[in-house]
Each structure stands twice: as C-alpha cells, then as structure tokens.
C-alpha cells in the first residue's frame, strides 16, 4: 500500500500502526477509529472459513466454551494442528451445518489494540452474488482469497467486479495455501501481478497482495518470516489496521430527515444521521424537495448542544425559522445541493428470485425517503466477460443498468460521490420484500440523456473502429453512457 493513497483517517491511525499488532493488553487506549468493515470473498476450497476462523482464533475472539461446543459438534473433526473445525464456528444455522455450505451473510467481530473489525462473511458461488452484494454494500475493503496452487480463477474476477461495483476501492489479495505451493515467491509474484491487472481494469489502484497460510496462521496475525524470508510486507491484520475508510465527505452537507421532533411548544427539531459533509450553527441550508432556505440555529444532542456535526453523527437540527419539513425530506448545504429530478440512471443488483421486471412499479427507499418508481433495465453485466450487454430483464443475481422514472421529485447524489445518498433499495409492492439494491449513476434529462456537458469541458479520443464495440461494453463506458458522444467516420452522432 503506498503512503500516498492513505486518507486522513488512515494517516491518523498510521503512527500507531507501524509496529506489529500486539493483542489484548487489558489497558488498551481508546480506539482511534470507527470499526473497519470488510468483506471476504472466496470459496470453501480457497480456505475462506479457515482464514476467518484463524483471524478470530488468533485475535482471541473465540472463547473456550464456544470452542468446546465446536468440539462436541464436529465429531472429532480437527485439523492437524489440533484446532477445531473453523467452518463449524462460522456456519451458524443448522441448515448450513447439514448442507456444509454457507447460505447467508454472517457478521463476525474481532479486534486488536488498534482497531476493531466487522467482517461480512459471504458465500462464494455464483448463485449467491446477491449475498456478496449485501455484504459489500457497507464494506470499506474486500479481502479476496485465492489458492496459491490454482491462481486467479473466473470467480476471483467476478468477486472483484462485484466489490468494485458496490464501491469498494481497496483490495487485499490473500494468496492462501502458500505452504502447499512450497512458499514459492515466483508463484506469488505471478498471481499478484495478474490480480493487479484485474483490479486496475476495474479502477481499483489500492491493492495489497499477501502470501498466507490460513491453516498454519502465517502472515494472518503472526508473521511468516521464517518460512517466507522473501516477503517483507505487512500481515493481513496489519494491512486491515491501516486501511482507510470512506468518509462521505465528497459532497456538501446532507441530512435525510428521519423524523420531526415536537416534544412541546416552541421546540421543533429535525432528526437524522448526517450523510455527508458537516454543519455548524449559522450555516445556510436548503430543504428539498421544497427548495425553502433557512439557517441552522442549533445542533441538539442528548449530551450537549454541539457546535458542529460531521458525516455519521445522529443529530437533531433546529432551524432559525418555521419551515415545512417532513420525514423523507433532505436538508442540504445551500451551495452544494444534491441532484433533484424525476428521471435517474442507476445500476442494480437483483436480489429476488423474480428478478427485475421491465415497466413494473416498485417502491424505492433511499435514506428515509420512500416513493414509487418505474424501473426499466437497459443492459446487464456478463460477469464472465466483463461486458455490458443489452437486456430488458434482470434475473436474480443479475447486475444491470436501469432507468428510473419517478412520479414525484427524487433526491440523490451519485453513488461515486456519496455512498449514503447515492444508494437505494427496491421493494416489491406485493410481497414487500427487498428485491434490489441500487446505485445512482446520475440524473437523466427528458431526452433520455444525461445532462449535457458544455463542449468546452470535452476532450476527444480516437480508437480503431473494431475496438469501439468492446469499449462501449466496458463498465466505464456503460456508467458514463450519457456523457460519451460516439462519432464514426460518417460523423454519426449516436450513443
């Protein structure tokens, strides 16, 4: 990991995290960061359960009575190091234990002196893309696991694609079972190089590759220096301790209003969690969708009347004048407003067996705002080739680009700029199930195109005509379809 890619959050903890992890001293200092959330991607064969089990075991997150339950369940199944079968520790539901597979997202907790961690443990098979998307939605980082003997597989590319799609910009490649590959440095280098190419093609530059043996505990929490003298990089836990967090600071102030508090005469506060930027008394804000403007009078919390609040804070905001604000409205910075409109483009992951049906009306929920929406898929991602092909229906686990049409005003930022205000779920109006998770790409103007960009801000590239089709099927081109103007030799202006 290059020091240049560390954000402020990481820089703050960086000074504390340069020494190897020391675990569980009772007199720990207050943790200096919020929990790092990460997702693990890989299959049973790659040793994913062993890896997570090892993390929990070596950070002492597994207690003796839990280990004893494992021993009782596992009918003597232990590995050669005398450790319990970690998969049993992780697969909490009886159905899973019986089938020997992980069917859902499970959350695990462990901590070191420096930081605490929340792991979303998700299954690896294609049919569980939706579970992976769920786990990835809140993750700051993805740990991708490969078997050193097998190298990069199709599923590695698939997992990396889903993780990047869900907004994860930091990858750790754990090259596992390196002990079974004779601790071969050349093998590790080849796999890392192949993976970096995949990551770069997805726009992810922050990649740390680590040779590990989860079974033997090498380079997970403890160093594997003796058997891998050629590796001088960080262990997995050191990498996680130094990882950065997305702060949602790239947009101005955002407060999706959850509820209006009117406990008595004279007090009217707007309660919600700051979803971007910061705020202090005296700042000017706009209430959306109404567009009414006001100034912040006070930020009320149970503890203190505060003089500032930042992204992530659950607050009660008091404005300086009586304005009409309801649940589902957004209070935003007056000079950095989100996009408002009735037509947006988005990418979706279909979560329900029914898929996403063109022209069907769904409920869309974003923050505290719930409204009717018509959804029309236009293309779908082929996870094997990485191409975006034309499509009008998304089956379960399908990932696609869709057009959203609202009956009233919708308020969004792009997912790229704000993961809180750029994300939404779709709810089926009959079953009331959550049937999709979506990420806003941008607003669509009435003509069906993105808002036009002035020519002064445009640049031109040319490429051989035979490459054009390939280029237009890339994720980048699809995500920016409305901004790209295609002109052939005949000067055809099309999309």
């Amino acid at each position: 990991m290059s020091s240049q890619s560390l954000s402020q959050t990481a820089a703050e903890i960086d000074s504390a995290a340069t020494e190897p992890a020391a675990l569980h001293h009772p007199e720990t200092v207050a943790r200096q960061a919020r929990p790092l959330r990460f997702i693990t991607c890989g299959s049973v064969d790659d040793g994913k359960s062993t890896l997570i089990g090892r993390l929990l075991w070596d950070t002492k997150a597994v207690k003796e009575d839990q280990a004893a339950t494992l021993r009782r369940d596992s009918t003597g199944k232990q590995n050669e190091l005398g450790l319990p079968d970690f998969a049993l520790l992780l697969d909490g539901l009886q159905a899973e234990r019986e089938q020997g597979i992980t069917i859902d997202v499970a959350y695990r907790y462990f901590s070191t002196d420096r930081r605490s961690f929340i792991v979303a443990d998700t299954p690896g098979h294609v049919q569980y893309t939706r579970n992976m998307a769920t786990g990835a939605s809140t993750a700051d980082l993805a740990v991708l696991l490969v078997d050193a003997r097998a190298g990069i597989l199709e599923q590695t590319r698939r997992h990396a694609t889903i993780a990047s799609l869900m907004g994860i910009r930091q990858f750790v490649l754990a090259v596992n079972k390196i002990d079974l590959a004779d601790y071969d440095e050349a093998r590790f280098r080849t796999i890392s190089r192949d993976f970096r190419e995949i990551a770069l093609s997805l726009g992810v530059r922050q990649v740390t590759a680590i040779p590990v043996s989860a079974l033997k505990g090498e380079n997970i929490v403890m160093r594997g220096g003796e058997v891998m003298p050629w590796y001088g990089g960080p262990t997995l836990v050191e990498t996680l301790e130094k990882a950065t967090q997305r702060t949602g600071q790239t947009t101005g102030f955002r407060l999706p209003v959850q509820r209006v508090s009117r406990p008595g005469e004279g007090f009217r506060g707007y309660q919600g969690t700051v979803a971007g930027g910061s705020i202090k008394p005296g700042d000017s804000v706009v209430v959306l969708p109404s567009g009414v403007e006001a100034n912040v009078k006070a930020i009320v919390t149970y503890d203190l009347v505060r003089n500032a609040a930042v992204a992530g804070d659950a607050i009660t905001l008091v404005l300086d004048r009586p304005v009409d604000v309801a649940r589902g409205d957004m209070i935003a910075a007056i000079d950095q407003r989100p996009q408002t409109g009735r037509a947006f483009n988005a990418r979706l992951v279909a979560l329900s067996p029914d898929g996403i049906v063109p022209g069907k009306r769904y409920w869309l929920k974003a923050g505290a705002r719930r409204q009717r929406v018509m959804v029309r898929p236009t293309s779908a991602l082929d996870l094997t080739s990485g191409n975006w092909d034309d499509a009008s229906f998304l089956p379960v686990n399908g990932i696609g680009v869709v057009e959203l049409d609202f009956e009233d005003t919708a308020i969004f930022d792009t997912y790229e700029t704000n993961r809180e205000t750029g994300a939404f779920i779709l709810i089926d109006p009959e079953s009331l199930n959550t049937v999709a998770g979506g990420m806003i790409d941008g607003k669509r103007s009435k003509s069906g195109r993105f808002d036009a960009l002035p020519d002064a801000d445009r640049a031109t590239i040319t490429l051989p005509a035979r490459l054009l089709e390939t280029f237009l099927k890339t994720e980048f081109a699809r995500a920016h379809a409305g901004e790209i103007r295609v002109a052939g030799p005949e000067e055809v202006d099309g999309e």
Partner: protein
Amino acid sequence: MNVIEHGRGKPPLDPHLKALENEAIHIFREVAAEFERPVMLYSIGKDSSVLLHLALKAFHPGKLPFPLVHIDTGWKFPEMIAFRDQVVARHGLDLIAHTNPEGLRDNVTPFSHGSARYTDIMKTQALKQALDIGRYDAAFGGARRDEEASRAKERIYSFRTPDHAWDPRNQRPELWSIHNGMIHPGESVRAFPLSNWTEVDIWRYIQAERIELVPLYFAERRKVVERDGMLILAEDKRLELLPDEQVREEMVRFRTLGCFPLTGAVRSQATTLDEVIEELEIATVSERQGRAIDRDQSGSMEKKKREGYF
C-alpha cells in the same frame, strides 16, 4: 422549551463507540418513524440498560414514543425488579410487566418443568402474549450478533410471521443502512439496534456514559450452591437444596442476568466497572457460558428463535 444537557463534564466517546451509538440511534428513529405500534423489550440487564440509554438519546429532547415491556417470569433476581422500578420512576417510563397467566396458574417453575419447557412457557409464550395484547408491529430488543452462532446471521430488522416465527432461510437482505420496514398486517419485526456491538463494547459504553446497572454485575460475597457445573444464587426460599448440596459464601458476580435458577455466577473479585472490564478483556469463556438455556442442545438458540424467542 429548555434543552437539558446531560453530558457536562463527560469526555467525548471514542470514535469506535460513537459510531456504534450513531448506528443504534439511527435504527431507533427509523423504526419509530415507520411502524405504528413500536415497543421496547426491557429485560433489566446490561444490554437493556444500554438499549434504554440509547433510546433516551435518540428521542431527546422528547420522551420515548413507545412503551417498554418486561417479561416477568416470577423467577428473576429480586434486585432486578427493584432496579427496574427505580429506572421507570427516574425516567418517567411507560412500563408494562407481563407474566404468562397460564404458566402462573399451572405453577410452571424451572424445577418442576425443566429449563427448556419453562423457558418456552414463561419466556417465549409470555413474550408472544404480551406482543399480541399490545398489537405491537415492531419490538426493539438488545440482542447482539456476537452472542451466539445463529444470531451472527440475524438481521437488524428481523421479520416475524403473525405467529412470531423466524425463518432464517427467508430473510430480507439489508444493504447499506437502508431498512425496509414494510410489512403485511399481522407481521412484525424485531429490531436490534445493538446488532454490531460486542460484549466489551457494551461495558466500555456503560463506563463512558456512566450508565447505572443492577449491582449483581459486580462481585460481592453471595450465598451460592453448585449445581450442574453452575454456581446458583441460594438466597431465594423457593430454591430447594438437593441432598448433597451445600450453600457457601463466595465472591461472585454475574455476566448476564436471567432467571436466578438458570443463571450461573462466576467467581470474581471485580467490584468496580474498571475491574469488570479488565476481567472481561482477559476472559477465555463467553458470557453465555452461564446460561443453561443455551446448552440444552446444539442449535438450541436457533430453535428457540424459530419459535418466537428473541
């Protein structure tokens, strides 16, 4: 209206606890806004104490927009009931205590019916009755994912059928911090604001926020008897000693609080919060080790949850 400030002179929370607090407050507000008849399950223990504290924060400067329900089996530690009544009075809470009337009539006790049937009748069935009587469509609980294997897969909004059953194979996905609170008539959710907290987080938060607890959490010389490998408190007249059992006085405390005949004490010298936390950070057994009801059989928490338990 004057806004009261509770935090004078208290150092700010570290970012880790602050993040957990923010998340819990967000969940409280979302459920209160989206459901018609929310209620909070209050069990008097440390997790419930944290849960209540967070609820007071979430709705400040207003009062809690929902009542509390306490499922009273009749076999709770007497100190718990006294503490409960103090808390209710101090915060002006609307608390409903419910005991299963049939269980009471049939004199169902942990001794006469065994822990599994007793728990089902006096806790699970009683809880369902209380929820049905109040027609509550959302119930806050203090369960944490780190407590037990099946809870690791529990959602923040846990959907329950009209019979209060939990189907782990058919849960709604939860992405980002967007919660789907839409339900059909008769269905309900259990909402868990403490999902992402660990036991250490709970204790650190209690310390940082100076939250009051039932004194049973701190070590004291107490009368105990050893039964089935557990140290049972021997202060209640209803506890009948078996022939070879002897009451001893020992320095003990409790890591979790339930019904006294089913909750094991741990030998401990930790009389203060600092000492409890220190003890916890070097502990090698989990807190649920002292709970008899988890040990009936492997997977028994999942089984109870399917039947409507928290």
